[in-house]
């Protein structure tokens, strides 16, 4: 069988970070405060303490401590908590790419979908956001209400993945 472990991560604060004006200025303030640049579209950056994953042109998903972000945004954007509605599922092992093709529509097997990349896609009818941690790890952000169903789907699918 293909090497793959599926595990649910503990609940954690997640926020939406949205900019509506002065994006360049906000980006400078962000980099000065957080020590890394706002990631580009389809990319993520940061550390376990604070990671931003860009899914829309003006919207980032924030994982970790978001306490400094409101001040950075000032009147140029807003931070909104969404963590209660999202379950993080970690896919570990080299089979994660194949697993994501099951019921998927997104090219998770592309070599360009590498560490630091992100995507918003549909898997088996469920809207899922993906973050590639490294070559053998991907974290999926799944709506809470669908998480049990998708977890079951993935566990079944994983059982039929053959090298």
């Amino acid at each position, binding site marked *: 069988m293909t090497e793959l472990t599926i595990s649910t991560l503990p*609940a954690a604060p997640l926020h*939406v970070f*949205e900019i*509506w*004006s002065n994006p360049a200025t906000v980006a400078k303030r962000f980099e000065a405060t957080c020590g890394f640049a706002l990631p580009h579209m389809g990319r993520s950056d940061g550390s376990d303490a604070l990671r931003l994953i860009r899914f829309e042109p003006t919207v980032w998903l924030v994982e970790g401590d978001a306490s400094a972000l409101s001040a950075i945004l000032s*009147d*140029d*954007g*807003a931070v*909104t*908590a*969404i*963590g*209660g*509605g*999202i379950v993080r599922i970690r896919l570990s092992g080299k089979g994660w790419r194949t697993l994501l*093709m*099951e*019921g*998927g*529509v*997104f*090219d998770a*097997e*592309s070599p360009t979908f590498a560490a630091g990349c992100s995507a918003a896609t549909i898997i*088996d*009818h*469920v809207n899922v956001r993906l973050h590639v941690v490294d070559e053998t790890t991907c974290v999926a952000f799944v*709506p*809470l*209400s*669908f*998480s*049990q*169903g*998708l977890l079951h*789907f993935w566990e*079944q*699918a994983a*059982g*039929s993945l*053959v090298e």
Partner: protein
Amino acid sequence: MINFRFDGKVYTAQAGDTLAAALLRNGIGLVGRSFKYHRPRGIMTAGIEEPNALVTVGEGGRAEPNTRATDVFVYEGLVAKSQNRWPNLSFDVGAALGLAAPALSAGFYYKTFFGSAKKWMFYEYFIRKAAGLGNAPTLTDPDRFSQRAAFCDVLVVGAGPAGMQAALDAAEGGKRVILVEQDHILAPSLLRDSQEQDAAWANATAARIRAAGGIILTRTTASGYWEHDLVTLTQRISEPGQVPTHDVAQRLWHVRAGQVILATGSIERPMAFAHNDRPGVMLSQAVRTYVRRFGVVPGKRVVIATNNDDAYKSAEALKDAGAQIAAILDARPAPAGANSGHRVYNNAVPLSTQGARHCLKSVQALVDGKTMDWDADLLAVSGGFTPVVHLHMQAGGTLDWNEDAQAFIPVSSRQNVTTIGGAAEPQAIFKMVPVSSPKKSFIDFQNDVTLADVDLAWAEGYRSVEHLKRYTTLGMATDQGKLSNMAALGRLAQKQGVAIPEAGLTTFRPPYTPVTMGLIAGAGAKDAGAHIRRLALYELHAAKNPIWQPLGYWFRPRAYPISGESLAQAALREAKAVRNNVGMTDVSTLAKFEVSGPDAAAFLDIICATTISKLAVGRGRYTFMLREDGIVFDDGTVWRLDENRYLLTSSTGGADRMATHISYVRQFLCPHLRVSAVNVQEHYAGIAIAGPQAKAVLTALIGAEPPRHMSTVPAAIAGVPVIILAASYSGERAFEIYVDASQAEAVWVACESEVFAQGGTLYGLEAMEFLRIEKGHLVVGGEVDGRMTPHDLALDKMLNKAGGYIGASGLSRPALSETGRRQLVGLEAIAGDIPEGAMLIPSEGASPQGHVSAAAFRIVTGGSVALGQLTEGFSRHGEILIASSPTRGQQARVRVVAPHFYDAAGERYRD
């Protein structure tokens, strides 16, 4: 050796045998019965085009009817059963239908089954009894079916020598390549015909493709070609009826390819002559395949009929295998075949065959105008070759007529698809015209369509090939024109006196070969095609064993019965508790949007049809939203949580639609606004506490005075931060508590404890429905049904007088203020219970003037009440109508009243 069963008898096969090969190996000539006339049929081909040898493979829920015996590889324990016969294959009572063949000609259904609807009800029974070949299994399919996406630069369909070479070139050129082959081995044609390449070449090439990163899928058929070079592949992971090794029986691939190369080859054509469907009449290449690939010789004394050179290879193969070539009937004039070393008859075409149910006995032919006969147990025919252009046509490709090959060949396509190999360059053949009697000259073997049927259709005025197809059922079922098309087109062209391309060509549609329904359903086949959405507090509810109610994809508690209560008893008890004391329920599924920013109020003034911008911090109000055309499409509440932060709630059922609407307004209509509108439907779990004692419960929970009606405060319950909204759907003093869903359990437990301490109870959707109907509150999908304006729902007084909201312009359309519109009313039963969904009529037999959108009982005092929509309803209060539901056989006399049956003044909201 491998053991398998056919019609209950055990046989043995060799590894790699198809079921067809194994049956021939065991001397079985009769494999099935034809659809209409129950004529005995054997094995005609060696591929997916097989029209005759359709069998049911597998048992129980795993049984697969109409499986082509040529497309299933034998495994240990395979169970196959012949179809469309009774009591057995050899003696089939249905064969008597053959005597009635003159009455069952083309258009039989249309000429016979007509008349009134009542007659159709009578005909239906017999039509259904006669329809189909095999029986669909009645048990649940135990297998799973997977659907998987794949992306590649080059998809090559067909792993013959041309396809493999193309795949190798692309893979070694650095492309991401997928190569698919419907057989279980690569380049199977190399086993039939020795060429420059051989099996060793195929193996080496496959290894190089894989080494270059290419993916090779065997037992995989490209079944559909869709827009944007999306190709669906059907992969058999286990054989039909076989228990899958890794749980999944089949996989449906959705391949998005940069380029598609079709190396699909061609299919050999049969010839049209009398009794050409008899067991023992086979296609020439199929015969050669059985001889050389499977080591099975289907006949000892063979006649070969051909119009091309390819059939001579079959003669060689048969001769090498020890068979006797009685004659080669070559339709071409001499000297075709002169140097073959066989007894060749030029200008020779078969006229008819004779035989028994299980075998062929003799062949009759017309040779240079004279009739000749040969004893033979096998007739191998080759009427030319039809390129497999199905996928090319599905891709929107065009075809050209190749006169030499008498075939359509692929030309251009609007998609990035190329055809190579035999499908692009079919062999040249000699043009033939059938000379035999058309009555038993079958051109569509599966549907028992003869040349005579085509002639009849022509005589009855069918000129278009598309009409001809439907009138005669030609090319339907698994054949899809593979074998039947060219013969029919040739006959039609002959009748019209035109060339075949002028006669036209039917359209090839997906799937190329049959696809099982389970595969289309995929993993969702077992749960109605979709995941169930679970509440954040699902486990807590489940522990109380509620009656669950599907609501969209959600499952919500409908009621919490105790002590054997029925749904109605439980719901009434729960509703009474809310009216008299206190109850709590889960409202987590409501749509919720957090709207932030300096322009949040301006944004909400556009989304909502009521005034939002004047709302004070800490206050909320009921609101509703319109479509552009002025029709109400959702409702909810808006709460000003902070100076620049609002919470908008709307209906559960409309949540996704509202999210799309808000996103559209934000991104397309209002990109200039400084606002963020985030969907927090699932972030917040929601708990509603309602009833005269709700305030006391809240006071105990938060240790402070709860907010007054339509006010909001932040608070903490069980140490967890919450937002409390004082809003009521039930008509009682009520509160909604919103909490981060990941922390909701502690809050629910605390609330439940306090509610129970007050003598209250949990309530579900059914009680909630009773409560809101009695109060006259709307529900989206019920009273708000996509046709009602704010005026129709008596909401017009709440409209934002400044306008500017979406739908404001649409509302001014004259049609929306004309008389005769349906309007919201209440209905009180005078006698009987009001049936939900009933039509409202003034008297028996009169036309409906409205309908009942929701019905319930007065919770405390009893009696049936309802909400409904009635033409000019506002002005008809006091009128007596009949609520009639013919489908339920129920009706009640009702009085039209105002749509508020409980506390119309709203006194109970207030402290």
